[in-house]
C-alpha cells in the first residue's frame, strides 16, 4: 500500500465509503477509550486489582497476531498492485496465499479471545461486576465483533483472488477490505496497553 513517488494520491486507498465508516468507528472507540481512562480516576484501586485478573500474555500474543495478520494483508495488496496483465494469475494466486494466512491469524485471534472470555466468565465476572469489567467487556466484545466482520470481508476478497477476479484496473475492492482490517489492528494497538498493561 505504499508508493515510492513523491506525488500524493488524491484519495485514500479503496472505496471512499469505507473511510467514512472508519472515521465513525474511530470516533466511537475514542469515546470508549477516554471513557475508560477517565472512569479509572474515580476508582484506581478497583481498576488495578481487576486488571491483574486479565492475562497479559494472551493480550500480547493477540497483538502480535493482529500486527502480523495486517502485514500479510499489506503483502496481498502489494501482490495485486504490482501485477501486469501477463502476471494477473500468479499475482492473484500470491495474494490468495497472503490472505489465507491473514485469515488464519484472525481466526486464531478469535480462538484466544474465546478462551480468555470463558476464563473471565468462569470466574463469575460480568458487565455489572465493576466499572473496569464493564469497559473491558464492552471494548473487547465490540472489537471481537469487528474482527469477525473483518474476517468475513477478507474471506470474500480471498474468494475473488481464487477466481483471478482482481485486474490491473480493478482492485479497489481489495483495498477497501484491507483498510477495514487495518482499522481492526489500529484499535487493538491502543486497546492492548490501555486495558492490559497501563496501571
Amino acid at each position, binding site marked *: 500500500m505504499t508508493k515510492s513517488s513523491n506525488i500524493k494520491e488524491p484519495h485514500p486507498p479503496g472505496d471512499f465509503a469505507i473511510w467514512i465508516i472508519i472515521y465513525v468507528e474511530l470516533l466511537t472507540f475514542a469515546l470508549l*477509550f477516554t471513557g475508560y481512562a477517565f472512569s479509572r480516576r474515580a476508582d484506581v484501586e478497583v481498576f488495578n486489582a481487576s486488571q491483574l485478573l486479565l492475562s497479559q500474555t494472551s493480550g500480547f500474543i493477540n497483538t502480535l497476531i493482529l500486527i*502480523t495478520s495486517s502485514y500479510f494483508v499489506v503483502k496481498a495488496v502489494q501482490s495485486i498492485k504490482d501485477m501486469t496483465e501477463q502476471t494477473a494469475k500468479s499475482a492473484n494466486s500470491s495474494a490468495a496465499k497472503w490472505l489465507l494466512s491473514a485469515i488464519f491469524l484472525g481466526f486464531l485471534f478469535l480462538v484466544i479471545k474465546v478462551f480468555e472470555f470463558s476464563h473471565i466468565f468462569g470466574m463469575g465476572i460480568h458487565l455489572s461486576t465493576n466499572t473496569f469489567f464493564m469497559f473491558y467487556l464492552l471494548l473487547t466484545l465490540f472489537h471481537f465483533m469487528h474482527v469477525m466482520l473483518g474476517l468475513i470481508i477478507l474471506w470474500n476478497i480471498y474468494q475473488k483472488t481464487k477466481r483471478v477476479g482482481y485486474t490491473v484496473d480493478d482492485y479497489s475492492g481489495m483495498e477497501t477490505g484491507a483498510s477495514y482490517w487495518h482499522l481492526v489492528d*489500529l484499535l487493538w494497538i491502543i486497546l492492548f496497553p490501555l486495558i492490559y498493561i497501563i496501571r
Partner: protein
Amino acid sequence: MPNLKNIVEIVWLILVLLTLFTFLLGLFNTINTSIVAVLLISTFIKAQLLIDYFMGLKNVRLRYRIIPSFWLFIVISLIATAYYYPI
C-alpha cells in the same frame, strides 16, 4: 535508504519490538507514572506507523491523512490527561 516497498517489513519488525517492550514492562510489573508516558509514546508511534504504512496514508493528500493522525493525537493526549491530571 530502503525501498518504500520494503519498508513494510521494517515497520512490521518495529511494531513487534515495541509490542514486546510494552509486554515486558507489564510482565515485570515496572509500570509507574513515568513509564505510562513511555508506553503512551510507544503506542502513538505504533499506531502512526500503521496509519502511514499499513493503511497506506503516507502518500495520500494531507486532508485524509490528518484525520486518523489527529484522532490518535487527541486519544493519546486525553488518556495521558486522565492518568496525570489530578482529580
